[in-house]
């Protein structure tokens, strides 16, 4: 018998069949066994109808950076799942399904199971077939029953529902054990410190909380809504204000008002919402009100594919809104970075009084990674204005670094005048060309320090080689996975997209064969490299079908365009 050191299971079924809950229980169970777990999913933008799946990958030695895409076992809650994913099943694998489903399938390695029967016996509702199936799967894999049942219990809040599911899972487990011989690899329990299973959305929310966020607002939108759900749930506990606005025009303007009043304010959305925020983004910049916008990219243009992933909003994030102003655009590649950058986004917004856009995407937002410990992040207080008796407060005082003294309404004797019109130092409307010029220059002076930060923090490098694969955002995770099977290639991740870390990036890729992989059509990072580095990469790989890259795709890309492979 083998112990499985690199296991991948896929759970699929129609929308409404509890696929995600099943995936969550599977993932937590394997995590408790000491595995490093990664999960990702796919679902259509309908509440019913259409296929959805969760993929759970678990590694024993080493990190599960992403999916492999070649499942060792499939739990098929309908025939479609078996047909759709069966082709990628590993040789020694198995497809678990209810007997009734099995009858309709003419495939190899099917394990028909009496799942519906089990559910009926247990007196559970039909949807509980998922837990019966998962029980069977984990039974076949030789998991620890107690760990499984614990995870099941924690998944459902209502005691009665949890109980039924536990019962069903246990019965399923017993059935699975009977078929144990069908799978030659088993799950082992190893000692491990407690770890987290963290998705990008939650990481962003936690990072913002660590960064002192006290006001959060959003209008629901896939795939950013989970941030709203999580923060709405913990608002009391965290003492923060959470507001569901009537639309995105409102949410961003509320955030601006909140920040003006003194709260560290964050607003989260996805592409269509970001588009609606374009005007107010400029207002935040002109008024120098610090706000953080989280944009969870989905596949566009327009309504597009609301539940699918893409990196199509980069140039838009950099250029959104009419007129010109400095801003910061950051893109994390995994939940740890999402946590760090979310906190940093708030620090930067408040230090420089600029809008900061945090770009994630559906793949990062809704996939889960195992995190051993969240890094220390530090809330940095901005400098606040200390009233001086005989001096009139000037919200837009011309300063060397472009940052003017900030203070909130409520300070005796201080009048704050914040203005979306061009203004003088006091905030009064002006059309004086000399003042207009000075104000424009003042705002842009912030870029000096920001660019320095971008150069020092904006590029991360993994591995060594004379070929550089340059990526941004969540492609990093897949690339890390792909990198394990490659030699001679280093991964270069651009984290600060605006201001662009041109010198650091130039240095890191100097003398290298440069490859770029992006989850978009128009190669937006490449366009930034062209503009900033006047460089044309050796080869570019684009994917724009709403799906993340697979490690294989990146592997092949590197193989075709670089030397030194052993994979």
């Amino acid at each position: 018998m083998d112990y499985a050191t690199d296991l991948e299971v896929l759970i699929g079924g129609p929308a409404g069949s509890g696929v995600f809950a099943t995936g969550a229980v599977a993932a937590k169970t394997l995590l408790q066994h000491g595995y490093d777990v990664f999960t990702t999913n796919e679902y259509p933008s309908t509440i019913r109808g259409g296929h959805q799946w969760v993929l759970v990958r678990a590694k024993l030695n080493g990190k599960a950076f992403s999916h492999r895409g070649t499942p060792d076992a499939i739990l098929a809650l309908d025939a479609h799942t078996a047909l759709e994913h069966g082709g990628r099943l590993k040789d020694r694998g198995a497809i678990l399904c209810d007997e009734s489903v099995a009858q309709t399938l003419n495939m190899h390695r099917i394990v028909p199971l009496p799942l519906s029967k089990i559910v009926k016996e247990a007196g559970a509702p039909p949807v509980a077939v998922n837990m019966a199936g998962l029980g069977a799967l984990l039974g076949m894999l030789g998991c620890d029953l107690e760990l499984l049942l614990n995870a099941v219990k924690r998944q459902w809040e209502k005691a009665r529902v949890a109980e039924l599911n536990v019962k069903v899972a246990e019965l399923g487990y017993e059935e699975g054990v009977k078929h144990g011989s069908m799978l030659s690899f088993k799950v082992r329990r190893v000692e491990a410190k407690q770890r987290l299973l963290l998705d990008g959305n939650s990481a962003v929310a936690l990072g913002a909380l660590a960064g002192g966020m006290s006001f959060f607002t959003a209008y629901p939108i896939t795939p950013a809504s989970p941030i709203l759900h999580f923060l709405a749930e913990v608002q009391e506990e965290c003492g923060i204000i959470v507001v569901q606005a009537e639309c995105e025009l409102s949410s961003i303007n509320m955030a601006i008002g909140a920040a003006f009043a003194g709260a560290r304010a964050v607003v989260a959305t996805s592409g269509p919402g970001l588009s609606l925020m374009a005007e107010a983004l400029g207002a935040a910049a002109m008024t120098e009100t610090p706000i953080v916008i989280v944009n969870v990219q989905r596949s566009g243009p327009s309504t597009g594919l609301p539940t699918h992933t893409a990196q199509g909003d980069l140039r838009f994030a950099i250029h959104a809104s009419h007129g010109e102003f400095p801003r910061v655009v950051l893109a994390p590649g995994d939940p740890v970075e999402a946590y760090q950058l979310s906190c940093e986004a708030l620090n930067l917004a408040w230090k420089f009084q600029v809008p900061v856009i945090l770009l994630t995407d559906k793949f990062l937002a809704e996939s889960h990674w195992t995190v051993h410990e969240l890094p220390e992040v530090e809330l940095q207080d901005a400098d606040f204005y200390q009233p001086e008796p005989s001096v009139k407060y000037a919200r837009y005082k011309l300063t060397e670094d472009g940052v003017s003294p900030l203070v909130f309404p409520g300070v005796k004797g201080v009048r704050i005048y914040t203005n979306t019109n061009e203004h003088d130092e006091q905030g009064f409307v002006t059309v004086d060309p000399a003042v207009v010029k000075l104000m424009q220059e003042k705002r842009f002076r912030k870029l000096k320090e920001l660019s320095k930060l971008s150069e020092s923090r904006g590029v991360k490098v993994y591995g060594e080689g004379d070929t550089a694969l340059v990526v941004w955002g969540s492609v990093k995770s897949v690339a890390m996975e792909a990198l394990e099977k490659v030699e001679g290639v280093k991964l270069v991740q651009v984290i600060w997209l605006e201001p662009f870390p041109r010198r650091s990036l130039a240095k890191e890729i100097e003398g290298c064969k440069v490859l770029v992989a992006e989850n978009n059509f128009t190669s937006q990072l490449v366009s930034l490299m062209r503009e900033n580095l006047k460089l044309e990469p050796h080869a570019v790989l684009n994917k724009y079908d709403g799906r993340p890259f697979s490690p294989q795709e990146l592997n092949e890309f590197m193989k075709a365009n670089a030397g030194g492979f052993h994979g």
Partner: protein
Amino acid sequence: MVEKVFDTGRRPQWCPGCGNYSILAAVKAAFTDLALDPSEIVAVAGIGCHGRMTEYLNVNAFHAIHGRAIPVAVGVKTVNPNLTVIVHTGDGDAYSIGLSHLLHAARRNVGIKVIVHNNMVFALTTGQAGPTTPKGVKTRSTPAGNYEEPFNTILLALASGATFVARGFSDDVQHLKELIKLAIKHRGFAFIDVLQPCPTFYDLRQILKQKVYKLEKHDVTDFKAALELALESERIPVGVFYHVEKTAYEENLGSAIKRLSSVKEFSKIRLSKLLARFS
């Protein structure tokens, strides 16, 4: 005069006879009467001739983008409920581009005070028809006469759930001042539609002077009576149409201001608790 405290010292720049002068006077007088501390007031203005209020009112101010003064004000008020938050907006700003925000803020009963400078025309953009321009009026965008029905804004405000609904007339500064004072003292959302003559683009002063009359002996807690009054069109009632006290939106929320001061400890202590759910 005590009002000087509320004066930025800039000379107001509106056309001669513009109703905005009187609204400015009424607001300052209301602040003075209520002995408000200027640093505890925030005025949020939209874009339009009305928007210049923030240039002359010596209180904290946010001159927002067109149509979004209300969400900005909602953000301010929820974060710091201690502040008196006044919105100066126009018929274009509030009823055309910003209509949705007005009604949602009313529905939620956010404790902001919305003063609509309703001159029934887009003035700053040199005179186009808007959602309160009467039918038939010729403007730059309706050279053959406006063929759209105007909104009944009092009715809309009532329908949206506003807990304080009033109409004022800029020419009667004393009366308007009293309305503003009532609005400020009101617990939740307050809405005052102020009829404001714009001598330059649509001068209704004489007609308004004839038609306007003051509401008296009206039970401001009687919603149906308020609806009926809102339907009057021959004469134009000014005064409070409706006024009931309900929990304000911000009273349901935590205090972001409180968290502000304890934010650093928060990150250390509570975060670990939150993380438990992810293991």
